[in-house]
């Protein structure tokens, strides 16, 4: 059996960091804005390079705190499946992204959270405008990150994207959220 990789960080016990670290907050915000831009502009390799080797990318369905080892999720990628997702997008034959969605997203409400070990816990909101062949769609999500300093650079070890309407019937969402 593979370990239950997400039990440690489902957001249930999120708490803000004890002391506010301006410098770290700024650095984290810059990281999140860069990640947002890479997603919006479909720079797939650069986005994939933001992940640690044990990265987990999770978009739950039917709630904010379901158990992905028991219940269906929209996305529940380990590191190799993140790589597969990127490889598919890069074929140019991922029809739902050909042409790619045109995107602009706003990241806000960035909070530093306490987290065990050396990782930096972060909570934020994302609001994403998408337009594609179908039409215009607004998406909104609450996100949780676990960032880790690797060789001086921040990397994503964990990213959870909880769409606020993930309990409802939603349109295809095949761009990077």
């Amino acid at each position: 059996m593979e370990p239950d990789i997400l039990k440690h960080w489902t957001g249930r016990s999120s708490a803000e960091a004890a002391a506010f670290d301006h410098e770290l907050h700024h650095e984290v915000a810059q990281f999140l804005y860069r990640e947002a831009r890479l997603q919006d502009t479909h720079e797939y390799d650069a986005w994939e390079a933001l992940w640690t080797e044990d990265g987990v990318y999770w978009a739950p369905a039917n709630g904010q705190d379901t158990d992905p080892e028991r219940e269906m999720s929209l996305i529940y990628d380990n590191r190799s499946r993140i790589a597969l997702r990127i490889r598919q997008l890069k074929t140019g034959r991922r029809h739902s992204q050909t042409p790619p969605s045109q995107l602009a997203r706003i990241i806000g409400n960035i909070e530093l959270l306490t987290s065990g070990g050396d990782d930096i816990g972060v909570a934020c909101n994302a609001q994403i405008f998408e337009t594609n062949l179908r039409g215009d769609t607004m998406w909104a999500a609450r996100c949780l990150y676990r960032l880790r300093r690797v060789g001086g650079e921040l990397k994503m070890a964990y990213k959870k994207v909880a769409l606020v309407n993930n309990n409802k019937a939603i349109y295809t969402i095949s761009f990077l959220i």
Partner: protein
Amino acid sequence: MEQSSRWDQLIRPGLVHGSLYCDETIFKQEVERIWFKTWIYVGHESEIPNVNDFVTKSIGPMPVMMVRNRHGEIDLLLNRCPHRGNAVCVQDKGNRASFTCPYHSWTFANDGALINYAFPDGYAGADKSKLGLAKPPRVESYRGFVFASMALEGPTLAEHLGGAIRALDQACENSPTGELDLSAGFLHHRTRANWKFILENECDGYHPGFVHSSIFSVADSAIGSLYGGDAIAITRSFGNGHTEVDPRPEFRRRNQPMSWFGATVDRLPRYVAQMNAAYGEKRAREIMIDGMPHVMIFPNLFIAEIQIFVIQPVSATESIQHVTAIQFKNSPEINRRFRQQTMGSVGPAGFLLADDTEMYERNQRGLEIKAPEYLYLKRGEHRERRDADGYLIGHSTDDLPSREIWRHYRSLMEAR
């Protein structure tokens, strides 16, 4: 005015008129003549394992509550207070012995019976037994699959399923206990397309090599090889609109248990041991070679090997695909792989279904273009034949499933 000549015009041999996918008047007729008449798959008993469990499902565009009532029986309840029409329950799922309408506090047992209403002296002489929640007139289960018909009479569920019942049995037989569990929760994938584009796609073996070439080219796929021009998989029509892709000839040629899942027996030792214990090694081996079915039970239950999809029509141009991983009762080893593969493949972000759904939406938009008026469904007409059981079969890439769906569709739409 509705002569059969109208249907002669709309549905011709190998040709169907584009308006059948976008005309709201036709959609309203479909709701009455198909969704509120024939047997519709509603849900699975494993979704409500405990007394008083309930979950909201649908019959066509209409919501329906599936309940394991206080007596432990499966009940379907229509969520409309008989007083003024308010919803007696606004949760998607839960566990409750009774439902109270918030408007005037009428309270119903979870078998639908009216328990009481507020200030009962105002209802002197009223017959409470006639004021319960409504139920679909006919409800039947087969191996945990719960179906309902809104028609007072008509064919039995067994008559409706006909030969397609083999596929349901095949699915259950792959479980060591003979039981399926569909309680992993559904992904709800909305699409701006008519429900029949989804229905017809499910046993269309012509598209996978093209629509899914992006994922087949970067991942090892167990299904890519089944849909080439030289594949020996077949399509079959069971009648009554039920169709399947039957890859068993290909799997029997390979003669490798679990090849259908892109796996081998040594990668699933616990499951294989369970199967051997349950069926004996010889029969277990046969089951594990044939694998799970790929069958579209008309009009809304699609068993796609390790997933089930439930198709829900919303309007002529809007539909929802509800999908979950099939789980075998008490087989955690293989169940985890089913869940992981399902989450990768299907739903709004899935490697496969995002692109299928893109095709549905492009088809739908295409029909706003006025010519040619008809869709062309003649592929493989010349090579249709009958199998030993008398069912029509064709090559896995043929349009035979669509033609057979339309034949049954027409019979339902013409019947008055």
